[in-house]
């Protein structure tokens, strides 16, 4: 009886396409059909497929059209077939890919990364070591720059000395090379940073226009020197702001500085009122366009004992020469003032020289 029961659970191969086709077509013998039914009772795969194919002729046509061409195409598209059959181990139990292979695959990139890191570290170490052996090349430079930074905060004279040693940059032209230390107020008043930019902008204009502007400004500067003090400067307005804007700011600063410098000399110079009147006269003549007469007055003032009056007169005399077309004489006066003068008059002389020579503003 066990044999009969065992027969119920006999295993058999799945149905082939031909068997399915003939089963549906009714072309199998009774024995063959019973064998097929026997398999269908036990194989859900074949049973489900048979159900589908029995449902419609279209499904059966799909089965007929099915071929393994796509597999061959896939194999052709991917790596070419390697017949590892002969090289394969005769292993009985197939196991998943061993982890050692995965490790070896993972170790390759990590090894490359480690080698690159080692190389980079070695290069860095060599460079670092080299810097130390270079000695003080960089260290000395660093110390020098640091000291320069510290010295930049010192007064101009000390700075000049350090800059001469380092020889990095020339001393700024606005700073007098031989100028002694001034009081703080004077230094502040003598730093014309914004006006310098304006002057630079104006430097592109023709020389005649600039010269006229400078003349107007200088004349007003001389005229305003009678009333010293910042308050006067605050009330002062340029007669022609457009034409004199370039040097106007500078001249107003010039007006401040003499006021500070002038105070200690007030008691010493007993002839100051007379000189002021002469200045006014010369300034009036200059503004009236009588440059020859003004030049004569300024020449007299150039012999004055007061340095500031002498420098102002020299500056105005140079302007008179320029208006008279005697450029060489003007240059000579300005060069002498730039070389031996001091204070805002000297800076003005330098600027006028640069304008006349068409040199860029510093």
């Amino acid at each position, binding site marked *: 009886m066990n044999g009969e*029961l065992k027969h119920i659970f006999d295993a058999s191969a799945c*149905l082939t396409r031909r068997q399915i086709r003939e089963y549906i077509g009714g072309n199998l013998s009774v*024995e063959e059909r019973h064998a097929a039914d026997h398999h269908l009772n036990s194989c859900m795969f074949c049973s489900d497929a048979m159900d589908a194919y029995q449902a419609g002729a279209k499904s059966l046509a799909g089965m007929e059209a099915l071929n*393994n061409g796509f597999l061959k195409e896939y194999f052709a598209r991917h790596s070419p077939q390697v017949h590892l059959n002969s*090289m394969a181990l005769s292993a009985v139990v197939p196991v998943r890919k061993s982890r050692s292979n995965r490790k070896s695959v993972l170790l390759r990139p990590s090894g490359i990364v480690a080698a690159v890191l080692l190389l980079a570290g070695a290069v860095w170490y060599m460079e670092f070591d080299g810097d130390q052996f270079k000695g003080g090349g960089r260290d000395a430079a660093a110390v020098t720059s640091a000291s320069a930074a510290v010295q930049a905060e010192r007064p101009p004279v000390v700075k000049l000395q350090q800059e001469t040693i380092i020889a990095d940059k020339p001393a700024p032209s606005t700073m007098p090379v031989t100028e002694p230390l001034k009081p703080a107020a004077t230094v502040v008043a003598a730093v014309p940073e914004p006006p310098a930019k304006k002057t630079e902008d104006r430097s592109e204009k023709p020389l005649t226009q600039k010269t006229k502007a400078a003349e107007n400004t200088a004349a007003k500067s001389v005229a305003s020197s009678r009333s010293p003090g910042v308050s006067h400067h605050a009330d002062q307005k340029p007669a022609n702001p457009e034409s004199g804007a370039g040097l106007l700011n500078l001249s107003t600063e010039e007006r401040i500085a003499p006021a500070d410098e002038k105070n200690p000399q007030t008691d010493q110079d007993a002839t100051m009122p007379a000189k002021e009147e002469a200045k006014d006269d010369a300034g009036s003549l200059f503004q009236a366009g009588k440059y020859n007469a003004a030049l004569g007055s300024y020449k007299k003032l150039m012999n004055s004992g007061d340095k500031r009056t002498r420098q102002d007169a020299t500056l105005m005399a140079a302007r008179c020469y320029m208006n008279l077309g005697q450029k060489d004489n003007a240059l000579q006066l300005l060069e002498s003032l730039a070389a031996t003068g001091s204070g805002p008059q000297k800076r003005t002389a330098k600027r006028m020289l640069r304008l006349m020579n068409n040199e860029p503003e510093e």
Partner: protein
Amino acid sequence: MKQQLPISDYARLSDEDLVHRYAQRNDRNAVTVLFDRYGHLVLGLCIKELGGATRAQELTRAVFIDMLDELPKFRIDHFKSWLYRYVKQRCAGRGSDIFDALRSRDGEYWVNDDHQVRMMLEQAIEPVDAGGVLKTLPQDERTALGHFYGEQQTHETVARRMNSTPARIKKLLQKGRINLRNKLEIIAEVRK
């Protein structure tokens, strides 16, 4: 060095041998033979599950292409059962996690159950009372099993005799086999 098998010899190899040859030796002929064995069944199952022949053909191709990558990752003891489950789940719309599900249940398929029942019946010292076991089954199942296995009839013949359809008889026989197997397994457990 061993020579590669002739194509005709692949037909004699079991499914598991073919899978092994592909997984371990990259033997593409083995995959082609597996497709010839099961390609039309996969297609039929896809048609039944999806309802459309065109989509079923596309999925059939996809199943075999994806299988090329997945077969080396598995230790497959019963390829047909594994493939059946795989196709069913692909038809249900599951993605790559199918393989994870299959991996955890490797070897626990319905084909294996028949094999175990056969082994139990072969090794049984004391014969099993087949009549007594069959009496425990429902009447229609018992009748269908008797006609089909006892009298070696076909589904159609049994259906005519039982005034039913071949499809219903097939279902009855399938259910009867499962119930009978469960009874025999219980008996085997009791005898242990």
